[in-house]
């Protein structure tokens, strides 16, 4: 287990380095400069030169590449060009928690609703219930988040006045309802489908039949024997969604007015805010690596076979 952990952490280093290299050169190759996003009139070339010098953009690219990497390794991700009063570290500290909170709530909702619904769909003999659950999951997978968010805002906000149409007042306010549901829908649908399939698979396996024959009550069988074995694929699916739900969705955050990480990331691209683009991408990459690692570790807890294989 320990050697597995160390191997995985070491293999993350080249992954992060490749991510850094790609995003660095793609960001700099994008047409336009950080100083082109002004108003009516273009900025004087002489002023552009001064700004370039101030932020070391006049240096050759390989110098910028290495110096940014060196600073990033020491935890300094540079200044923001879009808002000169803030550093990338400030931005991450301010915007990432908002997205993390919303994402965590959405994932929790997806798992807490998805597992019982998936189990119900697998176990029910009632075609209407199965059909309804299948409809929810199909809608959730096929509808893009910007459509879901817009529909929820227009119907619940503008139409019924139940939730605010825009803005962020904190996790435990009505302003978080629309973004949480919008974010939760896709992972919810995936968890339902996946858990339903794997429940159907384990339903007729020998150990389940044995448990039934022993006279165990249905619920303990569903939870301890079937559920636990069917959980592994569902966890993998939820894990793959968690990475992008946790760091925030640009569409959901823009449309619902959430000052989150996903929105800021895309605004930074529009503003050619290189340090922010690179810094946030690296953090995104780290989050994906960590979550994948956590998903792998969860196999050890859930699946005795994985533990056995490692033990050999």
């Amino acid at each position: 287990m320990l050697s597995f952990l160390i191997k995985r952490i070491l293999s993350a280093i080249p992954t992060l380095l490749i991510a850094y290299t790609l995003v660095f050169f793609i960001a700099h190759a994008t047409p336009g400069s950080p100083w082109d996003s002004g108003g009516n009139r273009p900025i004087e070339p002489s002023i552009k030169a001064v700004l370039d010098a101030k932020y070391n953009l006049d240096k050759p690219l390989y110098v910028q590449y290495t110096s940014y990497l060196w600073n990033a390794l020491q935890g300094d991700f540079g200044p923001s060009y879009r808002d000169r009063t803030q550093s990338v570290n400030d931005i991450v500290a301010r915007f990432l928690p908002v997205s993390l909170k919303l994402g965590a709530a959405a994932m929790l909702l997806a798992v807490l609703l998805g597992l019982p619904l998936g189990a119900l769909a697998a176990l029910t003999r009632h075609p209407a219930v199965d059909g309804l659950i299948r409809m929810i999951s199909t809608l959730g997978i096929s509808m893009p988040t910007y459509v879901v968010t817009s529909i929820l805002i227009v119907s619940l906000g503008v139409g019924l006045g139940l939730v605010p149409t825009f803005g962020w007042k904190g996790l435990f306010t009505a302003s978080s309802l629309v973004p949480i549901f919008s974010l939760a829908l896709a992972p919810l649908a995936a968890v339902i489908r996946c858990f339903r399939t794997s429940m159907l698979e384990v339903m007729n396996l020998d150990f389940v039949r044995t448990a039934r024959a022993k006279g165990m009550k249905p619920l303990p069988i569903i939870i301890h024997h079937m559920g636990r074995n069917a959980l592994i694929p569902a966890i993998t699916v939820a894990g793959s969604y968690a990475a992008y739900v946790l760091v925030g969705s640009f569409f959901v955050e823009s449309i619902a007015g959430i000052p989150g990480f996903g929105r800021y990331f895309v605004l930074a691209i529009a503003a050619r805010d290189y340090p922010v683009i690179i810094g946030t991408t690296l953090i995104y990459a780290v989050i994906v690596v960590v979550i994948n690692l956590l998903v792998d570790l969860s196999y050890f807890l859930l699946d005795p076979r994985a533990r056995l294989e490692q033990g050999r």
Partner: protein
Amino acid sequence: MLKSHVLKAFAIAALFTTALAGPVDAASDKSAFRMIVGEPRYMDPNLAADFAIYVNAQLFQPLARTDKDGNLVLLQAKSIELAPDGRTWKIALNPDYKWSNGQPVTAADWVYSWKRILDPKTGSETASFLSDVENAMDYNKGTLTDAEKVGIKATGEYTFEVVTALPAPQFRAKLALPYLTPVPKAVVEEFGEKWVAPEHMLSNGPYKLVSRVNDQSIVMEANPHYGGAKPAIPRIEMTIASGDQCTAQLRAYEADEIDFTTCVPSQDIARIRGDADLGKQLDPFALAATEWVQFDMRQAPWSDKRVRHALALVIDRQAIVTAVSDGTNRIATTIVPESIPGSNTADALKGSIEGAKKLLAEAGFPDGKGFPQFTISTTSTRERPLIAQLLQQMWSDNLGIQANINVLEANAFRAWVQTRKTEKYDIMINGWWSDYADPANWFGDLVTADPRQNHFTNEAFAEIVKKADAETDPAKRAELYRQANKILEEEQPMTALQNPTDLWMVKPDVQGLAHEGVLNMYHIGEAAFK
């Protein structure tokens, strides 16, 4: 058995979601004016060159305002006088106007601020508004390092002078620009770029900054030391939007979450105008701005006037205005808008589609035969791609010539336009918004300085504009610009398409929220709740 457990699970999930929900915010007591704005790129008024000036205008105030007839209405200034030499502007400040901590706004603050705008280290996009000032551009470009040589200096605690390099009548209008406001010298020197934080910022306008959370909210409250009339609305709450602000504003407005919107998404205009209640809350304002299609004047076939005329004559402007704004924008037949002195719609190009075909044939392309395939380049915003498609079709249907469309993301388009200084292009769609109501802002800043890379060179035009810029008699000056306008429209380096209209919506219980100046500023400090 199973059923009851499943029901339990559902109940838990439902409980969880309601716990998250919490109470919906109650409708506000009407003490705060609520609106949605874009994230200001800069809260520093010496740096703000984009829509941030509308946010900043609640906090910072210029010397004066320009009324409809171009006269100055004094605000922070007690008097503004032009010396007989035509170059020296003597400004006396009104000592009643104070910073939001009660300290006086002095001439030293004003001089410091304007030189700070010009300082190349500041990197301000607003520096060009001071380009008339003696030695200002040399200092800004770094060829002159001594800031003392710039023609801005304090002559007393509350008096200062600005000397222009040449007699510059348009500088009167620039003195009233919302871009040229003061910053508190002592605070800026102490805190550097962080002076704009709410705990440090001092402002000289009707409001002061109380809190700002980046990309989330801005809150202002009445400045107790403001020298003008005290605001009737004590508090402003701004929520920050990004991306599609018009849609966010309209939704929040219809849900009664905000009191004011500054635009309406084009797809909603017809619905709003048709709605009995919402239609009445619509408050349009005709902007002194023009959007046009321009040709690369350096190369064939665009250097041939007959080709430009042919392409211009077959444009159906009404179709464009209807498609992009439900007819709320106005048809523009000349580049310089009607409200700017020197403009003359009688100079508009006249002719028919038949005439256009003849012109194209004379230029060597009968029925469009042999005409090179060309590209219309445009930014992706402001419905411009739609305009490009309409032009593409009009030119193909009427003249038999074929265009491609090249849509670029906004920032990439700006950078692309800049590189057209040396590189070639065919046609682009562009626009200009008046910064101040003076012909110099169009004939000089737009056509002569050529920031849009039109490459229009015409000796007679250049000569007249040069003469007009220095003419101090307003009547003679306007007449000169009218001559220049005639040449501009006859040469047709740009073909005007439309004059945009701003569509505000204001809640019925708000009164006194007026459109101010060519920039269409709003001043919440002058509005009140009924």
